[in-house]
């Protein structure tokens, strides 16, 4: 479904080149559960951003569902992000003035989904993620775990092909972190392709496939049977 071939991403900081991704090749199949681990600054987020089309490689090719996407125009990339990609962030990134429901419906609204349809989708997600009693609360009235659940609901609202989570538990206590991982794994069991970047080896090892990144290269790619 996703195929990176010899993808590099080079930043130049103060005249010096930083190879955040160095000729990375990677294929992701539908329904996979992948964890990405590695030391800080090794290029995990960069990899995730490139998969999520927030960043474009400096060289190499990227095929998404067989389509070359490295040379698309902004509005085409936006369209793919809208329909194929779901992002989950360490700091949730909910919009403070919007309620839980409104936050969940935001990607649907941006995609031009009609109000009625949006209401149906968000109602189902709110129910499914145990947020029914919180649906018109604003983010600052929610706990960290609840915020991340809203963020996950938002990420899956458009039924993306792949869910990309960058340290989703990095800002949560153990208990809520475990809850969030349970939720994500539950989604994966129902067929959702899932890529999780994490520092927590305990979480990383639960994934069906563990990728290790060091200095912008994939040093280890192991499947658990």
């Amino acid at each position, binding site marked *: 479904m996703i195929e990176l071939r010899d993808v590099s991403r080079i930043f130049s900081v103060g005249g010096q080149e930083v190879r955040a991704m160095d000729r990375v090749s990677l294929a992701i199949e539908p329904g996979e559960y992948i964890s990405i681990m590695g030391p800080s600054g090794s290029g995990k987020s960069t990899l995730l951003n490139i998969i999520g089309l927030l960043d474009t490689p400096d060289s190499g090719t990227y095929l998404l569902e067989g389509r070359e996407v490295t040379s698309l125009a902004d509005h085409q990339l936006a369209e793919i992000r809208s329909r194929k990609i779901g*992002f989950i*962030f360490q700091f949730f990134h909910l919009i403070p003035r919007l309620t839980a429901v*409104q936050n969940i419906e935001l*990607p649907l609204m*941006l995609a031009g989904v*009609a109000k009625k349809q949006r209401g149906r989708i968000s109602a189902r997600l709110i129910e499914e993620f145990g947020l029914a009693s919180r649906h018109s609360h604003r983010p600052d009235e929610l706990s960290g775990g609840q915020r991340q659940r809203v963020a996950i609901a938002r990420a899956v609202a*458009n039924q993306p092909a792949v869910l990309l989570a960058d340290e989703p538990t990095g800002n949560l206590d153990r208990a809520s972190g475990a809850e969030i991982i349970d939720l994500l794994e539950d989604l994966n069991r129902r067929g959702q392709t899932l890529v999780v970047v994490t520092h927590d080896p305990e979480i990383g090892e639960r994934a069906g496939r563990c990728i290790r990144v060091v200095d912008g290269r994939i040093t280890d790619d192991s499947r658990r049977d």
Partner: protein
Amino acid sequence: MRPADTIVYAMRSLGSNTVRTVLMLLAMSIGVASVVLLTGIGNGARLYIVDQFSSLGTNLVIIIPGRAETASNTPATLVGQTPRELTLDDMKALQHGDMVGRIAPLTIGELNADRQGKERQVPVLGSTASMLDIHHLKMESGTFLPDEGADIARPVCVIGAKLYQELFGQAPALNEVIRLGGFRCRVIGILASQGRSLGFDTQEMVVVPVAFAQMIFDNHGLFRILVEAKDQSSIDRLKHFISRTIKKLHYGEEDITIITQDSVLKTFDKMLRVLTLTVGGIAAISLFVAGILIMNVMLMSVAQRTAEIGLCKALGASNFQIMALLVSEALLLSAIGGLSGILLGFAGAWITVQFYPTLQTTPPFWAVAAAMATALSTGLLFSLLPARRAACLDPIQALARH
């Protein structure tokens, strides 16, 4: 993204920072209100003056002897002839034109008026009965000149209110006799005091039948002939008719000047329109200032909402969508500010009318429309830069800032 959703989103965003929003609305509405109010006052002044002039009769055509502009070029002046006088015969010839409504001759002179030793130098106007209506004169008591042939030199006069007091004090004047330049004449009416008319103080002047005036002045030339067209649309035809008729009577010489009340009025009207436009334009500068305020506040708001903008991009918003969101915010602001400004302007106009009832300050429709259009285009123009800046944000960096 659907337009309705864009508007709702923009509204929520505006609603989330009330102080900022209210400040921008205030700037916008004050700008629009001042355009509306000032053009309203300008327009009111114009209507007031137009009204004052039309009370003299917009259908009035005035014939003056002699050719104003081209006098030096006519053969008559070359051979040293003075222009032919306007006479009562000219007036009689004009009387029968079918566009001619009322018509009145006018002669003017200064004479001594005296009664029982009291003496005053006064302007004397010779005319006919139609003068009363043409110049909207009003009677205090008695009657105006008798409605009879212009040739009849009946020795009667109508006197101004002040002159009446000076000659008679409190004594009754009707049917009393005064002397005008040595000629005896009977007072048949007293004019109501109503300021100046024809450049004379109505309180001091004396009006006599034109033939009588010609006799005492010993001059058969007329100072003016005043003609009222039957209606506004026939003024041009009336002017042609007058020049043709007079030319025929004056042996082919077109030695008169015809001016219309209408042309004077038009000049004033134009002047005041320009004035209104200027005042409105100056007020529009405040709209420009409001635009700059909007731009600054929006730049600030973009900086504050960096993470939100980055998020929207990650969720699938294109650069164009981001721009559209921010521009609609500004347009919404301008629209609401503009509408409340119009209300404010009309309220101001209404208050002005309460204090100066003669000044009908109705803001003209074009000014209201222009103010609204300016408000909207200011909003659009000044939001483009902040919107572009937002659209160009790198989503990764925008989201990284926490």
